[in-house]
C-alpha cells in the first residue's frame, strides 16, 4: 500500500505543480484565447491531481485528504518530476515544457489505462483524452512559434534547449526503481514510453523547423524529493493561506 500511495502521489504531484504553473499565466497570456486555453489545461491537471491525491490518501488509510497532501507536505516530500516545477519563462518555454510533458503524460496514461488497478485505469482512461488536447495545443503553438517569425523561431529553439535537460528524468526507470519492484504490472516502466514520445515529438519539431537538442544527463531525483530551488517558492505561495489557518474548513 505504501508503494502504491507513493507511486500515485508522484503522478498527482506532477499534475498539481504543473497546474499551478499554468494558473500563474492567467491575466498574463499573450492573448485572451490563451488565458482561456492555459486555464483550461490547468483545470484539467488540477482535476487529475485531485483524483490522484484523494486516491493516494485512501490507499494510505490514515485519513489524509487531497488538501492534507497538497498543502501540508514540504518541498522534500513532493515527488513531482523537476520539469513541471521550472518557472514559466517566456511563452515559448511554457509551450516547450507542455509539449514535452503532455506527450509524456499521454504515453503514461495510455499505458495506465490498461493497468490492473481499477482506479488508476479509470482515471487514466478519462484523462488521456484531456491530455491529447493538451499535447495538440502545445504542438500547434510549437509549429506557430517555430515556423513563425525569426524571433519566435529563435525563442522556441532556446526554449527547447532550456527544457531539454529535464527530459531524461521522465524516462529513467532508475528514478522509480522501488515502485517498479513493488508494483509489478501497475507502475509503468517509463523507459517503455520513450518510443511513443519520440514518435510524436519528432515530426512536430521537424515540421516546426526546430532542431531536437542533444540528450543531457542533468540533475534528476524529483521522485525522491530532490528538486530545483524553484519548487520551494511555489509551495510557499500555494500553501501560505492554508497553513495560516490550521484545521479549518474552506
Amino acid at each position, binding site marked *: 500500500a505504501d508503494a502504491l500511495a507513493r507511486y500515485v502521489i508522484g503522478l498527482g504531484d506532477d499534475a498539481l505543480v504543473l497546474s499551478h504553473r499554468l*494558473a500563474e499565466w492567467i491575466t498574463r497570456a499573450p492573448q485572451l484565447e490563451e488565458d*482561456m486555453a492555459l*486555464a483550461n489545461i490547468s483545470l484539467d491537471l488540477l*482535476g487529475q491531481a485531485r483524483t490522484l491525491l484523494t486516491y493516494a490518501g485512501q490507499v494510505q488509510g490514515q485519513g489524509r485528504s487531497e488538501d492534507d497532501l497538497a498543502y501540508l507536505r514540504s518541498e522534500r516530500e513532493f515527488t513531482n518530476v523537476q520539469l513541471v516545477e521550472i518557472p514559466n519563462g517566456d511563452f515559448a518555454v511554457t509551450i516547450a515544457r507542455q509539449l514535452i510533458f503532455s506527450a509524456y503524460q499521454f504515453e503514461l496514461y495510455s499505458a495506465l489505462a490498461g493497468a490492473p488497478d481499477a482506479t488508476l485505469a479509470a482515471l487514466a482512461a478519462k484523462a488521456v483524452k484531456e491530455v491529447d488536447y493538451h499535447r495538440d495545443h502545445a504542438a500547434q503553438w510549437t509549429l506557430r512559434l517555430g515556423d513563425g517569425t525569426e524571433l519566435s523561431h529563435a525563442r522556441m529553439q532556446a526554449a527547447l534547449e532550456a527544457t531539454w535537460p529535464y527530459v531524461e528524468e521522465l524516462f529513467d526507470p532508475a528514478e522509480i526503481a522501488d515502485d517498479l519492484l513493488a508494483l509489478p504490472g501497475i507502475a509503468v516502466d517509463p523507459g517503455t514510453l520513450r518510443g511513443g514520445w519520440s514518435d510524436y515529438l519528432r515530426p512536430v519539431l521537424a515540421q516546426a523547423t526546430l532542431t531536437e537538442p542533444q540528450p543531457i544527463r542533468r540533475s534528476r531525483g524529483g521522485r525522491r524529493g530532490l528538486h530545483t530551488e524553484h519548487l520551494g517558492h511555489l509551495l510557499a*505561495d500555494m500553501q501560505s493561506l492554508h497553513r495560516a489557518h490550521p484545521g479549518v*474548513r474552506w
Partner: protein
Amino acid sequence: AARQAEFDRLIAQDQRIEPRDWMPEGYRKTLIRQIAQHAHSEIIGMQPEGNWITRAPSLRRKAILIAKVQDEAGHGLYLYSAAETLGVDREDLLDQLHTGRQKYSSIFNYPTLSWADMGAIGWLVDGAAIMNQVPLCRCSYGPYGRAMVRVCKEESFHQRQGFEILHTLSHGSPAQHEMAQDAVNRFWWPSLMMFGPPDESSAHTVQSAAWGIKRFSNDELRQRFVDMCVDQARILGLRLPDPDLTWNEQRQHYDFGPIDWSELNRVIRGDGPCNADRMARRVGAHTDGAWVREAASAYAAKHADRSVVAA
C-alpha cells in the same frame, strides 16, 4: 428617413436590431462604448480574483476560482465579438483600453486583500453586475442581448459561489468570520457605486432608455440590490457597514446612507488603489505577448500562401 422610421418601429415594438439593420450613428456609438467598456471590465476583472488563484486554500476552491476567472475571459471574448458586429475590431478596442481612452468598471481598482474578498466579489460585485445586466438581456441590439443571456447565467452561478464562500467563512473560525466581515466592509460601498451616478446626474440614461438599451434607472437598480443584500446578509450572519440601513414601511424598501461620490470620481479619474497596477498588468501582458501574436500571424500567412500555391 425611411430607415430611421423602420428603426424606430422596431424599437417601439421592442424587437431586436440586428447587425445588418440600419441604425442611427448615435445608437451604434453608444452601444460600442457600452459593450467595449463591459468587455474591458470582464478582462480587467480577472485580475483581482487572479491574485488569489495561487493561494486558494483548498484544491476545490482553487478549481472553482480558476474556472470563474476563465469564464470572465470567455465573457470578454464574446462581448468583443458582439462589439465587432458593430464594425470595430478587438485590437482597436484593446488599444483604447490600453491608452486610457475607454474605461472599465471602477470596482476592479480595489485590491483583494484576503481570501474572503473572493466571496465578497462573488456575492456583491457579481450580484450588482447581474442586477445591471439582467435587463440587458432584453437590450434592443440583438448580439449584445444574446451575449448577456449567457453572461448572466454564468454570473449568477458565480454569485452563488461567492455567497457560499462567505457563508463558510462566516460560520468558520473567529479569524475566518472576521475575514468575511472585513471583506464585506470594504466591498459594500464600492458595489453600490457600480450602478453609476444618481439618476439626477446621469448623462446617458434618457437616450439609452429611449433606444431600449437601458431599461431601469441607476437608482432603481441600486435600490433593488440593497433590498436583496439586506436579506442575504442576514443569512450570511454578516453586517452591512451602513448604520443608516433601515426598512422603510412606506416605500417598502430599505433606506440607506449617503454614498461618497467623490470617492467614485477619484477612482474613475485614475487615483484608485489599483488603477496603475491593473493597467500595468494588462498592457504588460499585451506587450510581452506581441511576438507571440506576430508569430501566429506570420505562420497563418505562410500557411495560407502555401495553400494558395498548392491550389
